Protein backbone atom coordinates (compact mmCIF):
# COMPACT_ATOMS: atom_id res chain seq x y z
CA UNK A 1 0.00 0.00 0.00
CA UNK A 2 2.56 2.51 1.11
CA UNK A 3 4.91 1.32 -1.59
CA UNK A 4 2.23 1.86 -4.23
CA UNK A 5 1.64 5.32 -2.87
CA UNK A 6 5.29 6.20 -2.86
CA UNK A 7 5.58 4.95 -6.43
CA UNK A 8 2.64 7.16 -7.37
CA UNK A 9 4.19 10.17 -5.71
CA UNK A 10 7.60 9.51 -7.27
CA UNK A 11 5.81 9.22 -10.62
CA UNK A 12 4.15 12.53 -9.91
CA UNK A 13 7.51 14.06 -9.06
CA UNK A 14 9.04 12.66 -12.23
CA UNK A 15 6.25 13.93 -14.46
CA UNK A 16 6.38 17.29 -12.74
CA UNK A 17 10.07 17.39 -13.39
CA UNK A 18 9.48 16.48 -17.04
CA UNK A 19 6.82 19.16 -17.46
CA UNK A 20 9.03 21.71 -15.78
CA UNK A 21 11.99 20.70 -17.89
CA UNK A 22 9.98 21.09 -21.07
CA UNK A 23 9.51 24.79 -20.60
CA UNK A 24 12.25 25.67 -18.14
CA UNK A 25 15.67 27.06 -18.68
CA UNK A 26 18.56 24.65 -18.44
CA UNK A 27 20.04 26.82 -15.79
CA UNK A 28 18.52 29.63 -13.83
CA UNK A 29 20.24 31.64 -11.10
CA UNK A 30 18.36 34.21 -9.03
CA UNK A 31 20.29 36.58 -6.79
CA UNK A 32 23.12 34.14 -6.16
CA UNK A 33 25.84 35.43 -3.84
CA UNK A 34 28.82 33.77 -2.27
CA UNK A 35 30.93 35.19 0.52
CA UNK A 36 34.35 34.00 1.60
CA UNK A 37 34.61 35.67 4.98
CA UNK A 38 34.21 39.34 4.19
CA UNK A 39 35.04 38.87 0.51
CA UNK A 40 32.04 38.79 -1.82
CA UNK A 41 33.30 36.44 -4.53
CA UNK A 42 29.83 36.54 -6.14
CA UNK A 43 27.22 39.25 -5.62
CA UNK A 44 23.63 38.97 -6.71
CA UNK A 45 24.11 36.96 -9.88
CA UNK A 46 20.96 36.49 -11.95
CA UNK A 47 21.42 34.44 -15.07
CA UNK A 48 19.41 32.14 -17.27
CA UNK A 49 20.61 29.75 -19.93
CA UNK A 50 18.28 27.96 -22.34
CA UNK A 51 18.56 24.20 -22.96
CA UNK A 52 21.18 23.63 -25.62
CA UNK A 53 22.49 27.18 -25.33
CA UNK A 54 26.25 27.70 -25.41
CA UNK A 55 27.65 30.59 -23.50
CA UNK A 56 31.03 32.01 -22.57
CA UNK A 57 31.79 33.62 -19.24
CA UNK A 58 34.61 36.11 -19.51
CA UNK A 59 36.28 38.21 -16.86
CA UNK A 60 39.64 39.09 -15.38
CA UNK A 61 41.43 37.02 -12.76
CA UNK A 62 39.47 36.84 -9.53
CA UNK A 63 36.25 38.00 -11.19
CA UNK A 64 34.41 35.06 -9.60
CA UNK A 65 33.99 32.81 -12.65
CA UNK A 66 35.20 29.62 -10.96
CA UNK A 67 33.19 30.48 -7.86
CA UNK A 68 30.13 30.74 -10.10
CA UNK A 69 30.77 27.18 -11.29
CA UNK A 70 31.34 25.98 -7.73
CA UNK A 71 27.94 27.37 -6.71
CA UNK A 72 26.18 25.81 -9.69
CA UNK A 73 27.66 22.35 -9.03
CA UNK A 74 27.39 22.62 -5.25
CA UNK A 75 31.15 22.27 -4.64
CA UNK A 76 30.58 25.42 -2.59
CA UNK A 77 26.94 26.19 -1.92
CA UNK A 78 25.91 29.81 -2.46
CA UNK A 79 25.53 32.00 0.62
CA UNK A 80 22.18 33.23 -0.72
CA UNK A 81 20.07 32.95 -3.85
CA UNK A 82 18.34 30.18 -5.78
CA UNK A 83 19.67 27.84 -8.46
CA UNK A 84 17.34 25.90 -10.74
CA UNK A 85 18.48 23.14 -13.06
CA UNK A 86 15.90 22.36 -15.77
CA UNK A 87 13.22 23.89 -13.58
CA UNK A 88 14.14 22.00 -10.43
CA UNK A 89 15.38 23.91 -7.40
CA UNK A 90 18.76 22.30 -6.70
CA UNK A 91 20.10 24.97 -4.34
CA UNK A 92 20.20 22.62 -1.36
CA UNK A 93 21.33 19.53 -3.29
CA UNK A 94 24.77 18.01 -2.72
CA UNK A 95 26.99 17.91 -5.83
CA UNK A 96 26.33 14.26 -6.66
CA UNK A 97 22.57 14.87 -6.86
CA UNK A 98 23.11 17.64 -9.38
CA UNK A 99 25.53 15.53 -11.39
CA UNK A 100 23.04 12.65 -11.51
CA UNK A 101 20.51 15.07 -13.04
CA UNK A 102 22.81 15.68 -15.99
CA UNK A 103 25.08 18.52 -14.85
CA UNK A 104 28.81 18.09 -15.52
CA UNK A 105 31.93 20.16 -15.01
CA UNK A 106 35.63 20.29 -15.65
CA UNK A 107 38.11 21.84 -13.27
CA UNK A 108 40.47 24.71 -14.00
CA UNK A 109 43.21 22.77 -12.21
CA UNK A 110 42.93 19.17 -13.36
CA UNK A 111 41.27 17.08 -10.69
CA UNK A 112 41.93 13.51 -11.74
CA UNK A 113 42.78 10.16 -10.16
CA UNK A 114 46.48 10.18 -10.85
CA UNK A 115 47.06 6.66 -9.54
CA UNK A 116 44.53 5.13 -11.93
CA UNK A 117 44.79 4.45 -15.62
CA UNK A 118 43.14 6.71 -18.18
CA UNK A 119 40.45 4.14 -18.90
CA UNK A 120 39.76 3.59 -15.19
CA UNK A 121 39.28 7.33 -14.70
CA UNK A 122 36.69 7.48 -17.43
CA UNK A 123 35.11 4.21 -16.31
CA UNK A 124 34.71 5.62 -12.81
CA UNK A 125 32.99 8.67 -14.28
CA UNK A 126 30.59 6.44 -16.23
CA UNK A 127 29.88 4.42 -13.08
CA UNK A 128 29.25 7.49 -10.97
CA UNK A 129 26.15 8.46 -12.90
CA UNK A 130 24.88 4.89 -13.28
CA UNK A 131 22.78 3.00 -10.79
CA UNK A 132 25.43 0.33 -10.33
CA UNK A 133 27.97 2.55 -8.65
CA UNK A 134 28.05 0.25 -5.60
CA UNK A 135 28.58 -2.93 -7.61
CA UNK A 136 30.75 -5.53 -5.93
CA UNK A 137 31.11 -7.44 -9.19
CA UNK A 138 33.92 -6.74 -11.54
CA UNK A 139 32.92 -5.62 -15.02
CA UNK A 140 32.38 -8.40 -17.54
CA UNK A 141 34.05 -8.32 -20.88
CA UNK A 142 30.89 -7.04 -22.56
CA UNK A 143 30.22 -4.40 -19.89
CA UNK A 144 28.24 -1.57 -21.51
CA UNK A 145 29.78 1.13 -19.31
CA UNK A 146 33.26 -0.13 -20.12
CA UNK A 147 32.42 0.18 -23.81
CA UNK A 148 31.12 3.69 -23.21
CA UNK A 149 34.32 4.58 -21.38
CA UNK A 150 36.41 3.25 -24.26
CA UNK A 151 34.36 5.36 -26.66
CA UNK A 152 34.99 8.51 -24.64
CA UNK A 153 38.72 7.82 -24.42
CA UNK A 154 38.70 7.51 -28.19
CA UNK A 155 36.70 10.73 -28.58
CA UNK A 156 39.35 12.79 -26.77
CA UNK A 157 42.20 11.13 -28.70
CA UNK A 158 43.65 9.26 -25.73
CA UNK A 159 43.31 5.69 -26.99
CA UNK A 160 47.07 5.37 -27.38
CA UNK A 161 47.61 6.00 -23.66
CA UNK A 162 44.46 4.23 -22.49
CA UNK A 163 46.22 1.98 -19.96
CA UNK A 164 48.78 4.49 -18.74
CA UNK A 165 48.61 5.97 -15.26
CA UNK A 166 47.12 9.44 -15.40
CA UNK A 167 49.93 10.83 -13.27
CA UNK A 168 52.34 10.03 -16.12
CA UNK A 169 50.39 11.88 -18.82
CA UNK A 170 51.48 15.11 -20.45
CA UNK A 171 49.66 18.24 -19.31
CA UNK A 172 47.60 18.57 -22.49
CA UNK A 173 46.50 14.95 -22.25
CA UNK A 174 45.34 15.49 -18.68
CA UNK A 175 43.24 18.42 -19.87
CA UNK A 176 41.68 16.21 -22.55
CA UNK A 177 40.89 13.63 -19.88
CA UNK A 178 39.18 16.31 -17.79
CA UNK A 179 36.86 16.82 -20.74
CA UNK A 180 36.24 13.11 -21.18
CA UNK A 181 35.13 12.86 -17.53
CA UNK A 182 32.65 15.68 -18.09
CA UNK A 183 31.17 13.94 -21.15
CA UNK A 184 30.43 10.67 -19.34
CA UNK A 185 26.91 9.39 -18.86
CA UNK A 186 24.20 11.48 -20.48
CA UNK A 187 25.14 15.10 -19.82
CA UNK A 188 22.50 17.78 -20.35
CA UNK A 189 24.60 20.74 -19.39
CA UNK A 190 28.35 21.11 -18.96
CA UNK A 191 30.53 23.71 -17.25
CA UNK A 192 34.01 24.00 -18.79
CA UNK A 193 36.52 25.90 -16.63
CA UNK A 194 39.31 27.18 -18.89
CA UNK A 195 39.64 23.96 -20.89
CA UNK A 196 42.10 25.50 -23.36
CA UNK A 197 44.56 26.87 -20.81
CA UNK A 198 48.02 25.52 -21.50
CA UNK A 199 47.06 23.59 -24.63
CA UNK A 200 49.13 23.61 -27.81
CA UNK A 201 47.60 25.08 -30.99
CA UNK A 202 46.81 21.57 -32.29
CA UNK A 203 45.19 20.61 -29.00
CA UNK A 204 43.15 23.81 -29.14
CA UNK A 205 41.88 22.87 -32.58
CA UNK A 206 40.91 19.44 -31.24
CA UNK A 207 39.13 21.10 -28.34
CA UNK A 208 37.15 23.42 -30.61
CA UNK A 209 36.22 20.39 -32.70
CA UNK A 210 35.01 18.47 -29.65
CA UNK A 211 32.94 21.43 -28.46
CA UNK A 212 31.35 22.19 -31.80
CA UNK A 213 30.49 18.57 -32.48
CA UNK A 214 28.66 17.98 -29.19
CA UNK A 215 25.02 16.97 -29.74
CA UNK A 216 22.82 20.04 -30.13
CA UNK A 217 20.75 19.37 -27.01
CA UNK A 218 23.81 19.63 -24.76
CA UNK A 219 24.32 23.20 -23.61
CA UNK A 220 27.40 24.50 -21.86
CA UNK A 221 29.08 27.44 -20.22
CA UNK A 222 32.73 27.88 -20.98
CA UNK A 223 35.16 30.06 -19.04
CA UNK A 224 37.94 30.96 -21.42
CA UNK A 225 40.55 33.68 -21.62
CA UNK A 226 41.41 32.81 -25.21
CA UNK A 227 38.94 34.80 -27.31
CA UNK A 228 39.78 32.79 -30.41
CA UNK A 229 38.47 29.69 -28.71
CA UNK A 230 35.72 31.29 -26.63
CA UNK A 231 33.98 33.35 -29.27
CA UNK A 232 34.05 30.60 -31.88
CA UNK A 233 32.16 28.03 -29.84
CA UNK A 234 29.39 30.09 -28.21
CA UNK A 235 26.29 32.05 -29.15
CA UNK A 236 26.17 34.31 -26.10
CA UNK A 237 28.63 35.90 -23.71
CA UNK A 238 28.42 37.00 -20.08
CA UNK A 239 31.02 39.43 -18.79
CA UNK A 240 31.92 39.37 -15.10
CA UNK A 241 33.86 41.76 -12.96
CA UNK A 242 34.37 41.80 -9.18
CA UNK A 243 31.79 39.12 -8.61
CA UNK A 244 29.08 40.81 -10.69
CA UNK A 245 27.71 40.46 -14.19
CA UNK A 246 28.16 43.73 -16.04
CA UNK A 247 27.31 42.83 -19.61
CA UNK A 248 25.59 40.14 -21.65
CA UNK A 249 25.38 39.88 -25.39
CA UNK A 250 26.25 38.08 -28.62
CA UNK A 251 29.95 37.43 -29.24
CA UNK A 252 30.25 40.10 -31.96
CA UNK A 253 28.64 42.72 -29.71
CA UNK A 254 30.98 41.92 -26.87
CA UNK A 255 34.05 41.90 -29.06
CA UNK A 256 33.42 45.48 -30.18
CA UNK A 257 32.05 46.90 -26.91
CA UNK A 258 34.28 49.78 -25.76
CA UNK A 259 33.64 49.14 -22.06
CA UNK A 260 34.64 45.52 -22.49
CA UNK A 261 37.70 46.51 -24.45
CA UNK A 262 38.80 48.72 -21.61
CA UNK A 263 38.00 46.46 -18.67
CA UNK A 264 38.88 43.10 -20.01
CA UNK A 265 40.69 42.99 -23.29
CA UNK A 266 42.82 45.92 -22.22
CA UNK A 267 43.62 44.13 -18.99
CA UNK A 268 46.42 42.09 -20.52
CA UNK A 269 44.41 39.11 -21.71
CA UNK A 270 43.94 40.12 -25.34
Amino acid at each position, binding site marked *: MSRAMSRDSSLAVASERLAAAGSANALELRGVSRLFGALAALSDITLSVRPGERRAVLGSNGAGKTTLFNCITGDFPPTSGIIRFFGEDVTAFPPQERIRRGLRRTYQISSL*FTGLSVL*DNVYLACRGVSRSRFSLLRPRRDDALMAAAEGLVEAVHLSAVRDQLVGELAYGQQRQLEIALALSGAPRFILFDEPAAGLSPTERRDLVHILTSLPAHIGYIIIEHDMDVALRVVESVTMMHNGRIFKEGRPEEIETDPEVQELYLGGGHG
Partner: protein
Amino acid sequence: MAIAEHPSAYPARRPDRLGAAIARQGTAFWVAAALLLLMPLLVSSFWLVQILAYAMILGMIALSLMFLAGYGGIVSLVQMTVAALAGYVVAIFGHSAITQISLGWPWWAAVIVAVLIATAFGTLSGALSVRTEGIYTIMITLAIASAFYYLTLQNYTVFNGFSGFNGITPPVFLGVDWGENIPFYYLVLGCSALACWAVVYVARAPFGLALQGTRDNPRRMAALGFDVTAHKIAAYAFASALAAFAGVLLVWYQRQISPGTGGVGPVVDILIIAVVGGLSRPIGPFIGALVYVLLRTFSLDLLEWVGLDGKRFQLLIGLGFLVIVLFSPDGLIGIWRRITERARRSREARAAQMRIGGDAPGGTP
Protein backbone atom coordinates in the same frame (compact mmCIF):
# COMPACT_ATOMS: atom_id res chain seq x y z
CA MET B 1 50.46 6.18 6.49
CA ALA B 2 50.85 3.83 3.59
CA ILE B 3 47.86 3.37 1.38
CA ALA B 4 46.86 0.54 -0.86
CA GLU B 5 47.93 0.67 -4.45
CA HIS B 6 45.42 1.41 -7.11
CA PRO B 7 44.50 -1.78 -8.81
CA SER B 8 44.33 -1.13 -12.48
CA ALA B 9 43.61 -4.45 -14.09
CA TYR B 10 40.18 -5.26 -15.38
CA PRO B 11 39.38 -8.86 -16.16
CA ALA B 12 42.17 -10.30 -18.17
CA ARG B 13 41.09 -10.20 -21.75
CA ARG B 14 43.04 -13.36 -22.45
CA PRO B 15 41.33 -16.59 -23.38
CA ASP B 16 43.20 -18.82 -20.89
CA ARG B 17 42.30 -16.94 -17.76
CA LEU B 18 43.05 -19.78 -15.37
CA GLY B 19 46.54 -20.33 -16.70
CA ALA B 20 47.20 -16.63 -16.71
CA ALA B 21 45.90 -16.34 -13.17
CA ILE B 22 48.21 -19.11 -12.00
CA ALA B 23 51.19 -17.50 -13.68
CA ARG B 24 50.29 -14.07 -12.36
CA GLN B 25 50.56 -15.11 -8.71
CA GLY B 26 54.25 -15.93 -8.97
CA THR B 27 56.27 -18.69 -7.36
CA ALA B 28 56.32 -17.28 -3.83
CA PHE B 29 52.54 -17.44 -3.71
CA TRP B 30 52.33 -21.07 -4.76
CA VAL B 31 55.15 -22.14 -2.42
CA ALA B 32 53.40 -20.43 0.48
CA ALA B 33 50.06 -21.96 -0.49
CA ALA B 34 51.55 -25.46 -0.66
CA LEU B 35 53.31 -24.97 2.68
CA LEU B 36 50.12 -23.81 4.35
CA LEU B 37 48.18 -26.75 2.95
CA LEU B 38 50.81 -29.28 4.07
CA MET B 39 51.35 -27.63 7.44
CA PRO B 40 49.56 -30.34 9.48
CA LEU B 41 52.21 -32.81 8.27
CA LEU B 42 55.05 -30.53 9.26
CA VAL B 43 54.29 -29.04 12.67
CA SER B 44 52.81 -29.95 16.03
CA SER B 45 49.21 -29.21 16.89
CA PHE B 46 50.39 -26.43 19.18
CA TRP B 47 51.91 -24.60 16.22
CA LEU B 48 48.96 -25.46 14.03
CA VAL B 49 46.29 -23.98 16.29
CA GLN B 50 47.89 -21.78 18.93
CA ILE B 51 50.20 -20.03 16.49
CA LEU B 52 48.98 -20.34 12.90
CA ALA B 53 45.20 -20.53 13.28
CA TYR B 54 45.22 -17.81 15.93
CA ALA B 55 47.41 -15.59 13.76
CA MET B 56 45.09 -16.08 10.79
CA ILE B 57 42.04 -15.15 12.87
CA LEU B 58 43.69 -11.96 14.10
CA GLY B 59 44.92 -11.43 10.55
CA MET B 60 41.33 -11.50 9.26
CA ILE B 61 40.26 -8.87 11.77
CA ALA B 62 43.27 -6.74 10.85
CA LEU B 63 42.44 -7.37 7.16
CA SER B 64 39.11 -5.65 7.68
CA LEU B 65 41.03 -2.64 9.01
CA MET B 66 43.46 -2.87 6.09
CA PHE B 67 40.51 -2.70 3.69
CA LEU B 68 39.18 0.46 5.33
CA ALA B 69 42.54 2.14 5.87
CA GLY B 70 44.35 1.03 2.73
CA TYR B 71 41.59 1.55 0.19
CA GLY B 72 39.38 4.07 1.98
CA GLY B 73 41.87 6.02 4.08
CA ILE B 74 39.65 5.33 7.11
CA VAL B 75 41.39 4.35 10.35
CA SER B 76 38.73 2.62 12.44
CA LEU B 77 39.41 1.14 15.87
CA VAL B 78 36.05 -0.57 15.98
CA GLN B 79 36.96 -3.72 14.02
CA MET B 80 38.00 -5.77 17.07
CA THR B 81 34.78 -4.73 18.79
CA VAL B 82 32.76 -5.95 15.80
CA ALA B 83 34.54 -9.30 16.04
CA ALA B 84 33.96 -9.49 19.78
CA LEU B 85 30.28 -8.69 19.34
CA ALA B 86 29.95 -11.48 16.77
CA GLY B 87 31.60 -13.82 19.28
CA TYR B 88 29.19 -12.76 21.99
CA VAL B 89 26.18 -13.27 19.75
CA VAL B 90 27.37 -16.80 18.93
CA ALA B 91 27.57 -17.48 22.66
CA ILE B 92 24.24 -15.86 23.45
CA PHE B 93 22.19 -17.44 20.66
CA GLY B 94 24.07 -20.75 20.48
CA HIS B 95 25.33 -23.09 23.17
CA SER B 96 27.55 -22.25 26.11
CA ALA B 97 28.01 -23.30 29.72
CA ILE B 98 25.91 -20.31 30.79
CA THR B 99 22.62 -22.06 30.07
CA GLN B 100 20.47 -19.44 31.79
CA ILE B 101 21.41 -16.94 29.05
CA SER B 102 22.37 -18.97 25.97
CA LEU B 103 19.38 -19.74 23.78
CA GLY B 104 20.78 -22.96 22.36
CA TRP B 105 19.99 -22.29 18.70
CA PRO B 106 21.67 -24.52 16.13
CA TRP B 107 25.19 -23.31 15.33
CA TRP B 108 24.41 -22.11 11.81
CA ALA B 109 21.50 -19.96 12.96
CA ALA B 110 23.65 -18.44 15.69
CA VAL B 111 26.40 -17.71 13.17
CA ILE B 112 24.02 -16.02 10.72
CA VAL B 113 22.53 -13.86 13.47
CA ALA B 114 26.02 -13.06 14.78
CA VAL B 115 27.29 -11.90 11.41
CA LEU B 116 24.16 -9.85 10.76
CA ILE B 117 24.15 -8.13 14.14
CA ALA B 118 27.89 -7.45 14.18
CA THR B 119 27.84 -6.13 10.61
CA ALA B 120 24.93 -3.85 11.43
CA PHE B 121 26.79 -2.62 14.51
CA GLY B 122 29.96 -1.94 12.50
CA THR B 123 27.97 -0.15 9.79
CA LEU B 124 26.27 2.01 12.39
CA SER B 125 29.59 2.89 13.99
CA GLY B 126 30.79 3.82 10.51
CA ALA B 127 27.77 6.03 9.96
CA LEU B 128 28.54 7.81 13.24
CA SER B 129 32.18 8.45 12.45
CA VAL B 130 32.21 8.75 8.67
CA ARG B 131 32.05 12.53 8.52
CA THR B 132 35.20 12.85 10.60
CA GLU B 133 38.74 12.39 9.41
CA GLY B 134 42.07 11.10 10.65
CA ILE B 135 42.55 11.47 14.38
CA TYR B 136 38.86 12.25 14.96
CA THR B 137 37.79 8.99 13.36
CA ILE B 138 40.24 7.20 15.64
CA MET B 139 38.83 8.98 18.70
CA ILE B 140 35.18 8.28 17.90
CA THR B 141 35.75 4.62 17.06
CA LEU B 142 37.89 4.23 20.18
CA ALA B 143 35.07 5.74 22.22
CA ILE B 144 32.60 3.26 20.69
CA ALA B 145 35.01 0.40 21.40
CA SER B 146 35.45 1.35 25.06
CA ALA B 147 31.71 1.90 25.48
CA PHE B 148 31.16 -1.64 24.24
CA TYR B 149 33.84 -2.93 26.62
CA TYR B 150 32.17 -1.33 29.64
CA LEU B 151 28.75 -2.48 28.49
CA THR B 152 29.90 -6.10 28.39
CA LEU B 153 31.65 -5.68 31.72
CA GLN B 154 28.68 -4.24 33.55
CA ASN B 155 25.72 -5.91 31.89
CA TYR B 156 24.85 -9.28 33.41
CA THR B 157 21.49 -10.04 31.81
CA VAL B 158 22.79 -10.35 28.25
CA PHE B 159 26.60 -10.30 28.35
CA ASN B 160 27.05 -12.01 31.72
CA GLY B 161 29.37 -9.29 32.96
CA PHE B 162 32.93 -9.88 34.04
CA SER B 163 32.94 -13.64 33.59
CA GLY B 164 31.37 -13.72 30.12
CA PHE B 165 30.67 -17.09 28.52
CA ASN B 166 32.62 -20.32 28.49
CA GLY B 167 31.99 -23.80 27.16
CA ILE B 168 31.52 -22.63 23.57
CA THR B 169 32.57 -25.29 21.09
CA PRO B 170 33.07 -25.28 17.34
CA PRO B 171 30.30 -27.20 15.57
CA VAL B 172 30.23 -30.75 14.25
CA PHE B 173 28.96 -30.93 10.70
CA LEU B 174 29.57 -32.93 7.52
CA GLY B 175 30.67 -35.62 9.96
CA VAL B 176 33.68 -33.60 11.05
CA ASP B 177 34.33 -32.20 14.50
CA TRP B 178 35.67 -28.77 13.52
CA GLY B 179 36.96 -28.26 17.04
CA GLU B 180 39.70 -30.82 16.49
CA ASN B 181 43.09 -29.37 15.68
CA ILE B 182 43.52 -30.28 12.02
CA PRO B 183 39.94 -29.56 10.89
CA PHE B 184 39.99 -26.27 12.80
CA TYR B 185 43.24 -25.29 11.12
CA TYR B 186 41.79 -25.98 7.68
CA LEU B 187 38.57 -24.16 8.55
CA VAL B 188 40.51 -21.06 9.53
CA LEU B 189 42.84 -21.37 6.54
CA GLY B 190 39.89 -21.64 4.17
CA CYS B 191 38.11 -18.65 5.70
CA SER B 192 41.29 -16.53 5.61
CA ALA B 193 41.92 -17.39 1.97
CA LEU B 194 38.32 -16.53 1.14
CA ALA B 195 38.54 -13.22 3.02
CA CYS B 196 41.78 -12.33 1.24
CA TRP B 197 40.31 -13.20 -2.12
CA ALA B 198 37.18 -11.16 -1.37
CA VAL B 199 39.25 -8.09 -0.53
CA VAL B 200 41.42 -8.44 -3.63
CA TYR B 201 38.35 -8.97 -5.81
CA VAL B 202 36.30 -6.11 -4.39
CA ALA B 203 39.27 -3.73 -4.56
CA ARG B 204 39.18 -4.09 -8.34
CA ALA B 205 35.42 -4.05 -8.66
CA PRO B 206 33.66 -0.70 -9.23
CA PHE B 207 32.90 -0.46 -5.52
CA GLY B 208 36.54 -0.78 -4.48
CA LEU B 209 37.77 1.43 -7.28
CA ALA B 210 35.33 4.14 -6.24
CA LEU B 211 36.38 3.72 -2.61
CA GLN B 212 39.96 4.48 -3.59
CA GLY B 213 38.64 7.45 -5.54
CA THR B 214 36.97 8.80 -2.41
CA ARG B 215 40.27 8.37 -0.58
CA ASP B 216 42.29 10.26 -3.20
CA ASN B 217 39.91 12.93 -4.40
CA PRO B 218 36.55 13.07 -2.61
CA ARG B 219 35.53 16.35 -4.21
CA ARG B 220 35.95 15.00 -7.72
CA MET B 221 34.09 11.84 -6.76
CA ALA B 222 31.08 13.94 -5.80
CA ALA B 223 31.43 15.81 -9.09
CA LEU B 224 31.20 12.44 -10.87
CA GLY B 225 27.93 11.58 -9.14
CA PHE B 226 29.24 9.48 -6.25
CA ASP B 227 27.88 9.91 -2.74
CA VAL B 228 31.16 9.89 -0.83
CA THR B 229 29.56 9.45 2.61
CA ALA B 230 27.35 6.56 1.52
CA HIS B 231 30.30 4.90 -0.15
CA LYS B 232 32.38 5.06 3.01
CA ILE B 233 29.53 3.65 5.10
CA ALA B 234 29.21 0.79 2.62
CA ALA B 235 32.94 0.18 3.04
CA TYR B 236 32.39 -0.09 6.79
CA ALA B 237 29.64 -2.64 6.12
CA PHE B 238 31.91 -4.80 3.96
CA ALA B 239 34.81 -4.58 6.43
CA SER B 240 32.52 -5.31 9.36
CA ALA B 241 31.19 -8.45 7.69
CA LEU B 242 34.80 -9.67 7.39
CA ALA B 243 35.50 -8.84 11.04
CA ALA B 244 32.25 -10.52 12.10
CA PHE B 245 33.18 -13.82 10.41
CA ALA B 246 36.59 -13.61 12.04
CA GLY B 247 34.86 -13.01 15.39
CA VAL B 248 32.92 -16.26 15.02
CA LEU B 249 36.18 -18.12 14.41
CA LEU B 250 37.76 -16.29 17.35
CA VAL B 251 35.11 -17.43 19.82
CA TRP B 252 35.39 -20.99 18.52
CA TYR B 253 39.15 -20.76 18.97
CA GLN B 254 39.00 -19.33 22.50
CA ARG B 255 35.98 -21.47 23.46
CA GLN B 256 35.03 -18.64 25.77
CA ILE B 257 34.43 -14.94 25.51
CA SER B 258 34.62 -12.21 28.10
CA PRO B 259 34.92 -8.39 28.12
CA GLY B 260 38.71 -8.67 27.77
CA THR B 261 38.29 -9.94 24.19
CA GLY B 262 37.06 -6.50 23.13
CA GLY B 263 39.12 -4.50 25.63
CA VAL B 264 41.13 -1.46 24.66
CA GLY B 265 44.34 -3.53 24.57
CA PRO B 266 43.18 -5.93 21.82
CA VAL B 267 41.49 -3.05 19.96
CA VAL B 268 44.82 -1.24 19.68
CA ASP B 269 46.67 -4.50 18.97
CA ILE B 270 44.65 -4.87 15.75
CA LEU B 271 45.84 -1.44 14.62
CA ILE B 272 49.42 -2.41 15.46
CA ILE B 273 49.09 -5.72 13.59
CA ALA B 274 47.76 -4.00 10.49
CA VAL B 275 50.36 -1.24 10.48
CA VAL B 276 53.28 -3.54 11.29
CA GLY B 277 52.23 -5.94 8.55
CA GLY B 278 51.57 -3.19 6.04
CA LEU B 279 48.41 -1.57 4.75
CA SER B 280 49.11 -1.68 1.05
CA ARG B 281 48.27 -5.34 0.45
CA PRO B 282 45.84 -7.84 1.95
CA ILE B 283 48.68 -10.18 2.90
CA GLY B 284 50.19 -7.50 5.20
CA PRO B 285 47.80 -7.94 8.14
CA PHE B 286 48.39 -11.70 8.16
CA ILE B 287 52.15 -11.25 8.33
CA GLY B 288 51.69 -8.67 11.07
CA ALA B 289 49.44 -11.06 12.98
CA LEU B 290 51.94 -13.90 12.71
CA VAL B 291 54.73 -11.71 14.08
CA TYR B 292 52.44 -10.52 16.87
CA VAL B 293 51.42 -14.04 17.91
CA LEU B 294 55.02 -15.28 17.77
CA LEU B 295 56.19 -12.37 19.92
CA ARG B 296 53.32 -12.86 22.32
CA THR B 297 54.00 -16.55 22.66
CA PHE B 298 57.77 -16.60 22.85
CA SER B 299 58.75 -13.20 24.24
CA LEU B 300 58.27 -14.60 27.75
CA ASP B 301 61.06 -17.12 27.25
CA LEU B 302 63.12 -14.61 25.33
CA LEU B 303 62.84 -11.90 27.97
CA GLU B 304 63.58 -14.27 30.82
CA TRP B 305 66.52 -15.59 28.89
CA VAL B 306 68.06 -12.11 28.81
CA GLY B 307 67.15 -11.64 32.49
CA LEU B 308 64.06 -9.41 32.23
CA ASP B 309 60.56 -9.86 33.59
CA GLY B 310 58.70 -12.16 31.25
CA LYS B 311 55.44 -10.26 31.64
CA ARG B 312 56.87 -7.36 29.69
CA PHE B 313 56.10 -8.80 26.28
CA GLN B 314 54.07 -5.68 25.46
CA LEU B 315 57.35 -3.78 25.73
CA LEU B 316 58.86 -5.96 23.04
CA ILE B 317 55.83 -5.51 20.79
CA GLY B 318 55.88 -1.77 21.37
CA LEU B 319 59.58 -1.56 20.52
CA GLY B 320 59.09 -3.67 17.40
CA PHE B 321 56.20 -1.43 16.36
CA LEU B 322 58.36 1.66 16.83
CA VAL B 323 61.27 0.25 14.86
CA ILE B 324 59.12 -0.89 11.95
CA VAL B 325 57.11 2.30 11.72
CA LEU B 326 60.34 4.32 11.85
CA PHE B 327 62.13 2.31 9.21
CA SER B 328 59.33 1.30 6.89
CA PRO B 329 56.14 3.28 6.53
CA ASP B 330 54.70 0.32 4.67
CA GLY B 331 55.35 -2.20 7.45
CA LEU B 332 56.93 -5.60 6.98
CA ILE B 333 55.72 -6.02 3.40
CA GLY B 334 57.40 -2.72 2.64
CA ILE B 335 60.68 -4.11 3.96
CA TRP B 336 60.14 -7.33 2.01
CA ARG B 337 59.45 -5.38 -1.16
CA ARG B 338 62.59 -3.31 -0.71
CA ILE B 339 64.70 -6.44 -0.25
CA THR B 340 63.30 -8.17 -3.33
CA GLU B 341 63.61 -4.95 -5.31
CA ARG B 342 67.28 -4.62 -4.35
CA ALA B 343 67.93 -8.28 -5.18
CA ARG B 344 66.26 -7.85 -8.56
CA ARG B 345 68.29 -4.76 -9.35
CA SER B 346 71.62 -6.33 -8.43
CA ARG B 347 70.66 -9.40 -10.49
CA GLU B 348 69.92 -7.16 -13.45
CA ALA B 349 73.13 -5.25 -12.94
CA ARG B 350 75.07 -8.50 -12.88
CA ALA B 351 73.31 -9.70 -16.02
CA ALA B 352 74.08 -6.41 -17.74
CA GLN B 353 77.71 -6.68 -16.74
CA MET B 354 77.93 -10.17 -18.13
CA ARG B 355 76.39 -9.00 -21.38
CA ILE B 356 78.95 -6.23 -21.66
CA GLY B 357 81.67 -8.69 -20.80
CA GLY B 358 80.40 -11.13 -23.41
CA ASP B 359 80.11 -8.46 -26.05
CA ALA B 360 83.52 -7.01 -25.43
CA PRO B 361 85.71 -9.47 -27.37
CA GLY B 362 83.58 -9.26 -30.52
CA GLY B 363 82.95 -5.57 -30.04
CA THR B 364 86.61 -4.49 -29.93
CA PRO B 365 87.90 -3.70 -33.36
